[in-house]
């Protein structure tokens, strides 16, 4: 009599996570690495201009003994402070976006990213208002080293903010397109990293230039 051999039926056991071999180590994520490198370059870029600003101001104060800002010029506190508060709030919203993305909560991720973009634009608007208030002309014969330095530092930071906003918007659109999942929020994290650096640099500007003057 022929005996038929039957394959044993595999038992369906619950997955024991502690018995599963660990996944192979993942490479650092490309977008995040690229964002970190771009952040380093941005810090070097704005840092160089800031270093020149502080150096020239220190020499001016040591050599002339006069106030740094020319007669009649002023840097009102309110717009700068509001800008700082605005950017501080945006730190919360951008982290909210990353957190929501990680939890597959797309609606909140979109809301948080949208809020961050709005706060960033508000920051730029406040700086533009500040420029109209400080009585430092950049045209005509009354241009001073102070005006050149201040406009360059703040203009460069506005350009950084604009770049970061474009980056955030791009990541928002890619999220809307379904390119990021709950397990992969790399793009959002990368944009958030660049945003943190942008805000950190403004903190230096805010204290070193707008407060200390």
């Amino acid at each position, binding site marked *: 009599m022929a005996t038929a051999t039957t394959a044993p039926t595999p038992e369906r056991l619950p997955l024991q996570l502690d018995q599963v071999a660990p996944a*192979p180590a993942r*490479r*650092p*994520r*490309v977008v995040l*690495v*690229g964002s970190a*490198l*771009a952040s*380093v*370059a*941005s810090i*070097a*870029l*704005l*840092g*160089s*201009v800031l270093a*020149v600003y502080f*150096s*020239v*101001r220190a*020499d*001016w104060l040591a*050599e*002339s003994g006069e106030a740094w800002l020319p007669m009649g010029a002023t840097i009102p506190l309110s717009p700068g402070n509001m800008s700082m508060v605005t950017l501080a709030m945006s730190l919360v919203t951008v982290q909210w976006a990353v957190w929501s993305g990680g939890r597959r909560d797309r609606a909140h991720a979109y809301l948080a990213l949208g809020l961050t973009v709005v706060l960033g634009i508000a920051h730029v608007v406040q700086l533009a208002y500040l420029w109209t208030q400080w009585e430092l002309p*950049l*045209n005509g014969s009354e*241009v*001073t*080293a102070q*005006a*050149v*330095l201040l*406009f*360059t530092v703040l*203009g*460069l930071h506005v350009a950084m903010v604009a770049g970061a906003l474009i980056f955030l918007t791009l990541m928002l659109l890619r999220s809307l397109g379904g390119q990021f999942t709950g397990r992969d929020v790399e793009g959002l994290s990368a944009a958030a990293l660049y945003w943190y650096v942008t805000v950190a640099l403004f903190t230096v500007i805010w204290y070193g230039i707008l407060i200390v003057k």
Partner: protein
Amino acid sequence: MTVTETQAPPAAETTAPAFAPPRPATGLAAVLGTGDHRTIGRLWIYTAFVSLVVAGVTGALVGVEKVDTGGLGDVLDADIFAQTYSLHAVAGTFLFLLPLLIGLATYVVPMQVGSATVAFPRAAAAAYWTHLVATGVLLASFVADGGPFGGDSEAVELFVASFIAVLVALTLASICIAATVLALRVPGMGLHRTPLFSWSSLVTAAVVLLTLPVLAGVMLLVYVDHRYGPTFLDGSEGVFARIAWAWAQPSVYLFAIPVLGIVADIVPVSARTRLTKHRIAMGAIGAFGLFAFGAWAMPGFSPTGGAGTLEYVGEVPFYAFSILVLLPALALTGLLGDTLRRGSLSLTSPLLWALSALLMLLAGIANGILVAIEPLDLVETSAQSAQTHYVLVAALLGLFAGLAHWAPRVFGTPLAEGASKGLAALGLLGTVLLCLPDVISGFLGQPFRLGEVTDDVDAVEALNIASVAGGIVLVLVAVGFLALVLKAATGRAGTDDDPWEGHTLEWATSPLPAITSEAPVYDARHGAGSPTTEAQS
């Protein structure tokens, strides 16, 4: 009620798909829209050679003008001389050397680390096209009486703006290369197993990220000041002073970092053995990069105007950076010497180029130490420009070594070996002839760029003639090398795509070998247990 049933016509067996994949672009469209790292790398390389022509011609003009120590007017008047000198310096470094390095790295690094592409290929392409357009505008600004020392205010601003764009493009390309090494290495290739050219490209990119944005920031200040002032940066006269620190030590060593990686990749291949102490070699290259960071050593800024002074000369960091940079270079030289001693040497043309580059780099470092010794009073003499030339020409020779080594991969066929060897020997001779007379005339008091010499006039003029002759030899070497490259690029692809029996992944054929050491192709050919294994490193 009648119901009309309509049936779909039977589907044809060869129906075209609803979403046909786009046909690959061909011709010019393929070049303009490419994200292929090989195409982008070749574009960088070819464009760099065009800039080399500009740098060579302007360098020859400057050299001829310097022969007569009595003053200007033999070939160029004062303004034209200053602009020509500036163009020579900018074109030789930011339009030629760095782009050539980036081209080679964009081509080779992804293959070395086992990646199918460079990181952010569209950004890499954007960097190239930005650099190309900015280069065109920059050269046009000189034609329109712009550039440093230019007489036309708007053309000077055009130069500064285009120079910033050049710096941004180089920084962006460096980010792509660094991200490739950091994030796209094949599994099994830890950072400690990264091939040394890729590692040196990463180190170079890191120093570039910390240096070029600083230069760009200062240039932005120069632009705003020049356009709306000038208030404190000396107009077009001050532009050159704000760039020149990039060619002085320690920043000048930035251009030579990849030379160490190229040489360290070529020597073991030519010696047909493995490089021992791979990690020490990596450390040496990293330390060299550390001492090549020199953004701190730029002229100071004064609120009342003036180009600022070289405040760092004579200070401890200047001494330290100038002297300590010799240690990693010597350490690597020792490792490579030991590798040559152990191996069975094959005197290939890449090896000749590489050894010439390493020798000239060591000479440049020694020259830099002399310049740093304050009592010798060599700062802002021709000895300082000799050091710059030593290091930059060493970088040139090193990059030629890399092109000769990777020609079978980049151009499809090796360069003509005999001619390449002859050019390498001439390159070494030309470099010594260009630089050594300037070192001696520096001791005799010849100024950095141009100026009257009061003592030993005949000796200095004879030395200047020798230096110009060296420059002309180097121009001929560069032209000859370009001819070899063009011949290789336009000729039929060779049958032997690994004539040197390379060690690293760019020489591998599909499928990739297992990565168990820093020389996986060597392992696959000789076995992982071959006499000199990773255990020794």
